[in-house]
Structures are given as structure tokens and as C-alpha cells.
């Protein structure tokens, strides 16, 4: 057995970590002389280990292997053509662009799909036109093309995807591709599909992801119109859709979104958006916040803080005896700005609270009352 073959054979006995290391060393030496052996291993249909090692080595060789892999795209065995297309995509060498585009005309549908996927991974905008023509191929090719267009991105791919949104049967995938590639214009395009049928949640998710990425907000009119849909989607079993619906609700500026926003305060991943939404509602959220504080629910400290930020300090006497010390602290600070005998009496009581922080807040407020000054500006 020659030395090359011997060296490759040794790879078969190694564990994954040492194999990885040896393959890296081998590839660093630009060992193109192994190509013929590797090709024979690719052809070993049942021997998965050989085939996988061959693929690992090809990937490690990178553009050094591109020309050889391109030649395999015209192999008589369709499986070999598929492997070659996959590997070319992984390596991403743009010299293979034309060869991949030619492979889009392969007689075997699976080779065509592999070529489409490889073009997506390569991410070269020159492929957009040919991929757009694949949108009339078999369903699996269409799906692969939509995904590839999303990966390539850019103006031209986006325009194709926007137009393709009309195709109901592929709309879910198209939304996902736009979630990756979309821009401000995509937000407008996606709006019309939010809440429509099963993919309404996907359209919303894509819209919100893009809006966050691009720092834009859909028109208040749109959100107002979709409010009932958003309230439904906020209950979706899909966590990503729930998140998107809540974020959209936080933009709504509508008081009837308040209960959903309050409920989301307890969800670590949604808290920031829920606070944002409630702060944006300001006084419009007050009745619901007070209702929630009167109930037994959680997040009382946060609710009290938001209540105080709305400026609704006159609501606080009711909560000065709350079981939650964070609520009492907030009450103590808020009451300092209410110059009434009742507020003062409550503060005197709170200044003997067992919790240090409540006590400190009450003492501070009593001092402020005496000095006749208001509370400080920024932090309240």
C-alpha cells in the first residue's frame, strides 16, 4: 500500500478529536495528491466512515479541492454529484459559481436541490436571477430556492421574495427567508399577511425581527388594526411568535393591550418589552396596573415602580401596607411627593418598617416633605 493511502487509512482508527487535528495538518500541507483516494472513498456507498472522512478532508482542503469537486459535478453517479455540490457549497469558493449554476439544469432533482443549497451557502448575488427561475421547479427545489435567496439577501433577492409572498403554499418559508434578508420595505410587505391563516404568526415574527434590526416601527394604524390578532398570537404555543406578538403589542399604544403586557412582566424574556409597552401607555395603563396590584399576582415591585413612573402618586396610600417590601419602598418614595396629612402619617409608620430599604425611603421622603422639595428628577 502506498504511503498516501496508508496515511489516510490511519485516520479511520482515530477518535474524532485526533482525526480532526490530523486532517487539519494534512490539509495545511495542501495534500492534493490524496484526491484520487478520497474520491474512491466518496464512492464507498455503505462505508459511511470512509465517506465521512473523505468529506471532512475535502472541506479541510478548501479551495484547493474546488477544481476537482467541480469535475465531479459531471460524474455519472448522481450521489457523487450531490456530494460534490454539497462540498462546494461548504467550501464556498466563488470560482465554482458557474459550475453550480450549470448543475441547476441537472436531470436529477436531488442534484438540482443540492446545487441550489450550495448557491445559498455561497451567498453570491450573481445567482439570484437563476434561483428566481427555480421558483417554478418541483416543490422541494422551490423551498430550497426560497431559503437560498434569504441567505444571499440584498435588493434583488428581496424583490424576488416580496413578489413570491403571493404564493400561499410557500408563504411560511418566504416569511422565514425575509426574516433573514428583509429590510424596511419588507416590513410593509409582511404587514398584510400578519394574522392571516396559519402562517400569520410567521409573518409577524419576521416583521418584528426586521423592525428591531432596522430600528423601524410599523405604523400605529397597522398595529391598531391588528390588535385582536396580536392578542391571539400572544398565546401562541410558539415562543418566538409569542415574543413577536408581545413586542408588537408594546408598540401599540393602546390601553387594551395593558393586561397582556402586565401578564408578560413575569416572563424573563419578555419583561423588557412589557415594561417598554407599559411605559409607553403611561397613564392609560394605570387602571390595569392598580387592578394587578390589588390582586395577588407577582411582579408587584415592578408594577409599583411603573405606577410611580406614570406620576400616579396619589394611588400609593392604598399600597403603603403591602406585604411586598419593594411595593412599600416605592410607596414611601412616592408619598414623599404628596403633601397631605395622610401621606405624612403613612410615612411616619413606614419609617419604622422592619425592612431597612423601606425605612430609608420613608425617612428620605419625610425629610423632603419638611424641606418642601420635590423628589429628584431622573431616577423617579
Amino acid at each position, binding site marked *: 500500500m502506498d504511503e498516501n493511502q496508508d496515511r489516510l487509512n490511519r485516520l479511520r482508527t482515530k477518535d474524532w478529536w485526533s482525526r480532526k487535528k490530523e486532517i487539519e495538518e494534512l490539509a495545511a500541507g495542501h495534500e492534493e495528491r490524496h484526491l484520487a483516494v478520497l474520491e474512491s472513498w466518496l464512492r464507498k456507498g455503505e462505508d459511511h466512515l470512509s465517506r465521512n472522512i473523505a468529506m471532512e478532508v475535502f472541506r479541510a482542503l478548501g479551495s484547493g479541492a474546488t477544481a476537482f469537486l467541480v469535475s465531479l459535478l459531471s460524474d455519472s453517479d448522481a450521489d457523487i454529484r450531490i456530494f460534490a455540490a454539497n462540498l462546494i457549497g461548504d467550501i464556498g469558493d466563488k470560482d465554482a459559481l458557474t459550475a453550480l449554476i450549470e448543475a441547476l439544469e441537472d436531470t436529477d432533482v436531488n442534484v438540482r436541490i443540492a446545487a441550489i443549497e450550495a448557491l445559498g451557502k455561497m451567498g453570491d448575488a450573481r445567482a439570484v436571477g437563476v434561483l428566481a427561475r427555480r421558483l417554478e421547479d418541483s416543490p422541494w427545489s422551490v423551498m430550497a430556492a426560497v431559503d437560498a435567496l434569504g441567505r444571499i439577501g440584498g435588493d434583488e433577492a428581496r424583490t424576488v421574495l416580496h413578489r413570491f409572498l403571493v404564493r400561499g403554499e410557500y408563504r411560511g418559508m418566504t416569511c422565514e427567508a425575509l426574516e433573514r434578508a428583509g429590510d424596511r420595505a419588507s416590513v410593509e410587505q409582511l404587514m398584510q399577511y400578519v394574522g392571516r391563516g396559519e402562517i400569520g404568526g410567521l409573518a409577524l415574527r419576521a416583521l418584528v425581527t426586521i423592525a428591531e434590526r432596522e430600528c423601524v416601527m410599523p405604523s400605529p394604524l397597522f398595529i391598531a388594526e391588528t390588535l385582536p390578532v396580536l392578542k391571539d398570537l400572544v398565546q401562541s404555543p410558539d415562543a418566538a411568535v409569542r415574543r413577536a406578538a408581545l413586542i408588537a403589542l408594546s408598540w401599540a399604544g393602546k390601553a387594551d393591550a395593558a393586561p397582556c403586557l402586565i401578564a408578560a412582566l413575569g416572563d424573563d424574556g419578555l419583561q*423588557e418589552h412589557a415594561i417598554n409597552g407599559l411605559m409607553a401607555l*403611561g*397613564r392609560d395603563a394605570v387602571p390595569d396596573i392598580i387592578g394587578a396590584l390589588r390582586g395577588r399576582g407577582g411582579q408587584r415591585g415592578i408594577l409599583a415602580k411603573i405606577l410611580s*413612573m*406614570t406620576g400616579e402618586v396619589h394611588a400609593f396610600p392604598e399600597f403603603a401596607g403591602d*406585604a411586598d417590601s419593594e411595593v412599600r419602598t416605592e410607596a414611601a418614595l412616592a408619598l414623599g411627593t404628596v403633601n397631605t396629612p395622610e401621606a405624612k402619617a403613612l410615612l411616619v409608620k413606614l419609617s419604622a418598617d422592619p425592612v431597612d*430599604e423601606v425605612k430609608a425611603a420613608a425617612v428620605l421622603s419625610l425629610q423632603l416633605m419638611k424641606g418642601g422639595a420635590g423628589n429628584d428628577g*431622573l431616577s423617579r
Partner: protein
Amino acid sequence: MTAFPDKKTIMSAEEFSSLRDLIEREFGILLRGDRRLTLHTKVSHRLSILGLSTYKEYYDFIVADPTREELFILASHITNNETYFFRERPQLDALAEILQDIKREKQGGEQRLRILSLASSSGEEAYSLNILIHESGLFAWNWDVEIIGIDIDRTAVSKAHAATYTANSFRSLNGDMSRIQRYFTVEDGRYELKRAYAKNVEFRHANILDSGLYAGLAPVDVIFCRNVLIYMSDPATERLVSNFSSALTETGYLFIGSAESLIQKTNLFTPEYREKVIVYRKNSEAQADAGQQRT
């Protein structure tokens, strides 16, 4: 509608990241993403109380404080204190069985049982464990039983000492009043634990990431550290797990929350699958490896 200042005027990105990094460094707690409004909502009252006007001043105040008191206060406002009696019942049932094994193992040896309730919040978990031990009847005579709860939140630790609760702490009992009345004096919606069931439980105000803490606690038979790892970074989890490993006896048991996992995060512990629950045990091979590397 009231106009609110937007988050950029409330707290700059730099102010946020310096506080976020401080919290992660000291307590292992991660604040993922831009959480400025959340942080502001949770701690702005500290600025008022301390008479500070920016978060930069607040940060400087914390790092200059030699007592580290404000650092702990900051962390305690960020964490979630949610807890209740007999939380995650199947784990407690598993412990009841394990207690029998522990008792058997200790036969003829030192009659001492030590359990840690880490991130104990207001103490419901530690007291539940004590009630369970009491109900088992296994360690009643001449046993030195000690349950130690530890939390960074001073207010929670004081509540735990006071051992007085509201109905909210009993939500998993579904109104099983007989059990409540056996252990609590109920008056005006307040549930006070009878002193007899509190006497071998103690609470400390400390950071469970601090490895120095464990030297004085070892050897420990069982560690409960539930519903806190979910908030922690991977490096912090690694530090914690190594603390647990040094504190536990060779045959000790570790319970973490049922939504948490150590699988692929450490080789110091291996999962042991019991009916419905996973209990972690020390991995003797990893200990041996570590030993060999040291020699």
C-alpha cells in the same frame, strides 16, 4: 399620555454594560440583551435613596463601597425570589427515599446530617426539607441535623429567619390545611412556623459563588440548589459545581431545578435517574483524573 424619557436618557449603553458585567462577574447572573428598562425599573429607587442622579455615579458608589453591601443589594433586586413550600414535589419524594440510604450508610458512624439549601430565598425550601426529615422519623434520636439556607438577598434572609408566610407560599399544597396546621400557627392570613420546626434550620447572607463559604460547611450530605442556575452563565455554573463537589461527601447528593441541567456542563457530577427525577452524584472518575493530574 405622559411622555416618558426613553431608555437612552435613563441609562446609557455604557452604564448598562458596566453594571451588567459587574453583576455577572460577582454573582454569575446573566442579563441577556438590552435590559436597560428592566434594570432601571428594578434599581432606580436605590439612586433615590442614596441621593445619586446617574447610573455612572451608582456604579462608582458600588465599587468604592468596602463593605460590598450595596453590591449585594443591587444583585438582590435583580434576582427573582419566587419560591414556595414543597416546590417540585417529586424531587422531595426522591429525597425521602434517599434519606433512608443516608441513614443506612451512616449506621455506626457519626450521627450527623447536613443539608444545604442554596439560593434559599425566603426559606420555604429549607423549612420544607426540615419538615420532610421530621416526617421521615429517621433522624429523631441523638442525631445532629442541620439545614443551612444561603442567599444574597438580605430581605429574603430576614424573612426566612422570621419564618412567617402568607398563603402565596403554600400554593402547591392546594389548600391541604391539615399539613399546614400541623406545622404553622395560622392567624389573620399569616402562617407562622412553629418554633420546634425552625430550630435546626439556619440562614446566612452570602454569595454561593464564593468558594471560601464552603470550607466551613463541608462535609455536606445533600445540596439543594434549585431555580438559580437558569440565571447563571456557564463559567459561573462551573465554579458553582466545583464548590458543590468540594463541599459534598463522596456519596453526597445534588438536586437542581427540574428545568435545569448539568449534562454536558460538567464532568464533576453524573446524573442518576430515579423515578421521575434526576439526582446528581459525584463522578468518581473525574475526581480520580483530577487527583492524578495534581500528583
